[in-house]
């Protein structure tokens, strides 16, 4: 997804929707906006209950931009089961400058105290919400209690996403502005000059992956456990482990690990089971890790931190005699961005996944009860219902058989799952305006891939420096990840944190969606492996087993002749 352009009505050019993907607009304004598919977070169709979820999420985005006095708001629409959003400005052009100045001031105030806002205010509140969910007895609750719990769940969810955007906006904008400043000062330092100043900090994603490696060392301590992990497919490992005392002991270790870090699913949304529900994804990584010795490959941190400190010192040397305001701004943004880069991953651990999976658990309890009442065929069909349908059914579980309705909707979703949604709908409003906010959107979601000058080359955005060569493995979901072997190039539409333990196995990462500030790129840099992100059609063009060369600095992939 690209060009989170704020619509400029004057030069809107209508985008013709493909016949298999018709789009109808509710009003003239909608038709003039640029609607973009957020393939990085929502590559798959969105189910009805997820639509209710995402709509609330982006209302929270708008409250955050309001709180920061930013002149931009997002509209969202579920079009043919895919989630689209459009940015629009809320102030007339003549007031834009003043509004942006106020926004800059607000944003600076948040950036100035990012770490203390997080540690002293936001995180304690987030943990209190999560604890509230954990304290509730879902299975034991009577129907009215459970319904009341649902309503409060939604309220708390909204509050958490309010916090989410309060956190991510200053975190990412700090990184983006540091990069803007760095480019202004040292043009020609490559794609990653500023990002080297942000590497080597620990975050919850890396922490979870290191703990998984540590777990693999415990597996190696037992010959029986090691053998099971070596020989059994990931899906059969648990059953085999249950057969021996050593195996059961390791299972307890695995459970403890999942209790701490297992609330991660393969993408953003409600319908993807987390690792606690489906531990195979974790076990796939354990199987890879036990084949390896040496230091924890999930931790390049010390080396990266040393490089970072050297790079920071070099910049300070270069800026030594620059005018004070330049040096002060650099130091201000460096501090904020170094705090922001950690929060850009940590917020996801607590909110995008930590909170979402607690909401999923609540909804699955409704699913269980509706299934037992015969309203739906299986627990997870609850996600095919709307929120009002869930409420109505929960109040009167025998009020209706919704199985046919669910089937109908499932068929619609399956139909569109097979269709690649157009990246943009509505109107093309030209290039985004030249301002810090648009630059941040561009770096997060990625610029549209440039046309390649050679038929065997695919272009994307530089994600992580370095070059690598290896057989490509196109992985569409984590259940597909077993084929990825050490030295392979991982080709995916997008990667969520649950994919990142695979970064220790892959030689390089290639994605269809995302920019240099995407989660994938940020984490790939922490693994020190090359990444090219936001390639658009990599998963559709590259075939399993093709040898590819990945150039993370230049941002392209070459498919080598067979």
């Amino acid at each position, binding site marked *: 997804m690209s060009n989170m352009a704020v619509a400029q009505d004057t030069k809107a050019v209508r985008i013709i929707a493909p016949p298999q993907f018709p789009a109808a607009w509710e009003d003239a304004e909608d038709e003039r906006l640029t609607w973009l598919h957020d393939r990085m977070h929502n590559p798959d169709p969105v189910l009805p209950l997820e639509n209710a979820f995402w709509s609330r999420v982006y209302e929270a985005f708008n409250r955050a931009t309001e709180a920061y006095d930013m002149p931009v708001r997002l509209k969202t629409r579920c079009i043919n089961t895919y989630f689209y959003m459009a940015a629009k400005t809320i102030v007339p052009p003549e007031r834009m400058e003043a509004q942006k100045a106020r926004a800059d001031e607000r944003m600076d105030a948040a950036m100035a105290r990012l770490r203390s806002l997080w540690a002293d205010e936001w995180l304690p509140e987030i943990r209190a919400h999560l604890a509230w969910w954990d304290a509730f007895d879902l299975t034991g609750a009577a129907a009215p209690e459970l319904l009341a719990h649902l309503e409060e769940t939604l309220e708390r969810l909204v509050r958490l996403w309010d916090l989410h955007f309060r956190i991510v906006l200053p975190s990412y904008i700090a990184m983006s*502005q540091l990069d*803007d*400043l760095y480019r*202004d*000062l040292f*043009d020609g330092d490559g794609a990653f000059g500023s990002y080297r100043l942000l590497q080597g900090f620990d975050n919850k994603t890396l922490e979870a992956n290191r703990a998984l490696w540590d777990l693999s060392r415990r597996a190696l301590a037992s010959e029986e456990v090691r053998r099971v992990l070596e020989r059994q497919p990931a899906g059969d490992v648990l059953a085999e482990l249950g057969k021996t005392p050593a195996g059961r002991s390791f299972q307890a270790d695995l459970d403890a690990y999942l209790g701490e870090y297992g609330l991660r699913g393969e993408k953003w949304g409600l319908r993807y089971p987390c690792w606690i529900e489906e531990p195979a994804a974790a076990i796939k990584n354990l199987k890879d890790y036990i084949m390896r010795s040496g230091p924890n490959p999930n931790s390049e941190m010390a080396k990266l931190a040393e490089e970072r400190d050297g790079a920071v010192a070099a910049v300070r040397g270069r800026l*030594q*005699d*620059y*005018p*004070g*305001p*330049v040096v002060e*701004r650099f130091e201000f943004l460096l501090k904020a961005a170094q705090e922001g880069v950690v929060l850009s991953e940590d917020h996801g651990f607590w909110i995008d996944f930590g909170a979402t999976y607690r909401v999923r658990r609540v909804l699955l309890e409704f699913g269980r009860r509706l299934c037992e009442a015969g309203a739906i065929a299986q627990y997870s069909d609850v996600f095919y219902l709307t929120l009002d349908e869930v409420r109505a059914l929960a109040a009167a579980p025998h009020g209706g058989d919704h199985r046919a309705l669910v089937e109908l909707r499932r068929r619609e979703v399956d139909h569109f799952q097979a269709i690649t949604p157009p990246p943009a709908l509505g109107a093309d409003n030209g290039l985004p305006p030249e301002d810090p906010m648009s630059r941040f959107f561009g770096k997060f979601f990625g610029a549209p891939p440039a046309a390649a000058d050679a038929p065997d080359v695919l272009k994307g955005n530089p994600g992580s420096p370095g070059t690598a060569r290896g057989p490509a493995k196109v992985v569409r979901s984590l259940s597909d990840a077993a084929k990825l072997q050490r030295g392979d190039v991982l080709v995916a539409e997008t990667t969520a944190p649950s994919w990142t333990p695979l970064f220790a196995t892959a030689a390089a990462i290639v994605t269809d969606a995302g920019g240099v500030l995407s989660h994938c790129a940020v984490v790939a840099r922490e693994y020190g492996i090359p990444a090219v992100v936001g390639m658009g059609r990599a998963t559709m063009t590259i075939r399993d087993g093709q040898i590819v060369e990945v150039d993370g600095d230049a941002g392209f992939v070459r498919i080598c002749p067979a």
Partner: protein
Amino acid sequence: MTVAVASMHPSTAHFDWKRPAIGTPGQAVPRPGTRGRSIVWLGDLACEEYALVGGKAANLCRLAAEYPVPPGFCLTSIAFDRAGGLGVFEGEEPSAASLPRDLYEQLTHAYRTLGERCGVDAPSVAVRSSALDEDGAGASFAGQHETYLNVVGAQAVAEAVARCWASVRSSRALQYRRQHGFALDGFRIAVLIQQLVHADVSSVMFSANPVTGNRDEVMINASWGLGESIVGGTVTPDTYVVRKADMATVSRRIAEKRRMTVMATDGTCEVEVPRFLRMQPTLGQEQLMEMAQLGVALERRMGHPVDVECAYHAGKLFLLQCRPITTLTWSR
């Protein structure tokens, strides 16, 4: 903004350049008692001597006791004569090695002393020519002789001095002399070596409005970094006009400042101003007042409208240059 400069010819000056307290522009013979000194310090009485240090340095020296002028010293016209006068380095590349031995040692010693005054081992200095008939009643000589910025180390300073000396013979300088009716022979040059202010903001101030001719107003041009980008015209600076009577800001035009001069290894370079800073005002209200007050005080002290170069570093205002306004059009 453009400062309307009518003509560079001396006869267009509209007010008289009051003679400085000691010596006169172009006076050939130093006063008794100063004879023989190759190096004098800003703030020394001898440094006010026109015949020793030239107009630029003499002006600055007179102000050094009262105003925040960065510390520095001069290689006098006597040093120039010792090195060979106008025939200096004839037919050879000017270099530190061609300085007379004792002069080189005196220079090294002075540079060390300057370091002590600045509190650093090897201070970064500006090395500027100060012609003996420069900054006199007519022309400013601005930019006619060499200036070296961010020179670090005694050897490099000696090198810069040698180049300054040699620059009096440059075809550009001689052409200027011919055009303005200055002597083509027998003139001399001094060299001012002064701590370089690592300017956050530099400005050029006129204690009379050079655009309108209004003597009740101070006009200030200010931009980021060292003053070279303003003086060289590569940046459009902010323009502030302040009324002397009540220090009210009459106008304030914030320009998009795209270029700035910053220190680089062995000199300076001009770079792009980062985007975030381009439209930010260079001077706050307090700084504007402080600067305007300095302009008013200097005009009073000098007895005529002045053209001032100054700079802020870490919130402190420094006076870098103060000259009579030699060419103004009062008609606009």
